[in-house]
């Protein structure tokens, strides 16, 4: 099966899916389940450097929908499927379809803009401005400008633009990457030795930040640098640093207090 997702111009999950379905002309459901998963994983890895959490979750969501649709197909009979679930599935699917169509629409619109720019770009505008003999006529543009206003303008130019207030939208992009969180944990955890996940994330306001921490914890666990224990379902996770860096046994309580403070 000529099936590859390692295209150089990849632009996010919708783009990938569009390519898979339209450009590649494959019937997604003829492709093996593992090929889809491998494809996503390979893509995720290839763009890891610039991957933000939002894109990653979008990938997961789409992968999940695809896998669910696919499993449905593999499972026998409708009897064991709740009607609500069935409807929810169709809803998901329709939503995905609508979003794909929207994405495709703007891709094509972008193509039209490109052609317009290419055409317009062959002409260059005259921007010469006033000849010297008229320069004296123009009203003084510094009218009303004081030295103080000049200073204020500089302050403004030198100050980083204010971040827009938090978009309450739940999809508001939070700019924390898993890699950053891993780096933070590698610095923090050897110091504290043991800590519960609840405590580790107590100070974080955004749910996404907590999720990023969680992904980072899983990553470190996978790397064998961290042990996770959980007493029971929904109990807090106990984390213990076991690899590299600080000595996890020496005075963890003291360090923990320090962290909590």
């Amino acid at each position, binding site marked *: 099966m000529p099936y590859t997702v390692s295209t150089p111009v990849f632009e996010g999950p919708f783009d990938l899916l569009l390519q898979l379905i339209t450009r590649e002309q494959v019937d997604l459901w003829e492709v093996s389940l593992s090929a889809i998963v491998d494809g996503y994983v390979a893509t995720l890895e290839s763009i890891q450097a610039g991957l933000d959490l939002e894109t990653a979750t979008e990938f997961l969501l789409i992968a999940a929908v695809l896998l669910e649709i696919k499993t*449905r197909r593999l499972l026998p009979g409708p009897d064991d499927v709740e009607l609500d679930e069935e409807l929810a599935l169709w809803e998901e699917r329709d939503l995905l379809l609508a979003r794909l169509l929207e994405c495709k629409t703007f891709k094509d619109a*972008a193509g039209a803009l490109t052609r317009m720019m290419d055409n317009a770009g062959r002409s260059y505008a005259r921007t010469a401005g006033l000849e010297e003999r008229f320069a004296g006529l123009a009203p003084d543009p510094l009218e009303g400008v004081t030295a103080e206003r000049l200073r204020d303008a500089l302050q403004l130019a030198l100050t980083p633009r204010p971040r827009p207030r938090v978009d309450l939208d739940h999809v508001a992009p939070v700019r924390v990457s898993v890699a950053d969180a891993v780096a933070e944990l590698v610095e923090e955890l050897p110091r504290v030795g043991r800590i519960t996940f609840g405590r580790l994330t107590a100070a974080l306001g955004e749910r996404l930040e907590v999720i990023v921490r969680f992904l980072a914890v899983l990553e470190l666990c996978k790397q064998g640098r961290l042990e996770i224990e959980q007493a029971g379902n929904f109990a807090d996770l106990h984390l213990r640093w076991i690899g590299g860096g600080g000595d996890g046994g020496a005075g963890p309580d003291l360090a923990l207090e320090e962290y909590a403070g």
Partner: protein
Amino acid sequence: MASESQRAIEAILMVADHPIEAGLLAQVLEVSPSRVEELCAELRASYEADDRGFSIVRVAGGYRYQSHPDLAPYVERFVLEGRHARLSAAALETLAIVAYKQPISRAQVSAIRGVSADGVLRTLEQRGYVAEVGRDPGPGQAVLYGTTGALLERLGLDSLAQLPPLGQFVPGPEVVEALERGLRADAAARPGGSADPAAGGDALSAGPLDDSDG
């Protein structure tokens, strides 16, 4: 022979550094704006008839001189650095979304593209093609973005109304079908499931597509 008004328009546009609105030319010439439009059209035609290396065009709501597209190779040799840098595919898609859906928030752009739009929007803002045009009145007061006159100039358009209607780009039935096929859960095999293959049509009309050229 050129009329006094035509000559005055030529002289004024020659010293302008941005497109000049017909209204301002009309004020200076003491004629009506529609007369200015006629005069500019006549000038344009006469340059064309004389096979000049330049033209008068109407972009971003005003008139300006520009070089004839034929002569781009010479002009580009002269400007060397190639002023018209190309935008990335991501930037163009984002630009298309902002152009057709403005005013639009960052989060809404991200939602349509499925990837964060922060970096791309910043680039477009730096290029001067996109600017903050207001705040969402709702909670959070998200910054709303729109396109600028500089974008119109770059596209060679007089106004946003000249953008081709978005409906023109809505994928045709073959694509919709291909996408539907791709996403089909084979529910047809199961009685009781919503097996209607036309369900995708609902999705289309219920989707956030908007034909308005905003």
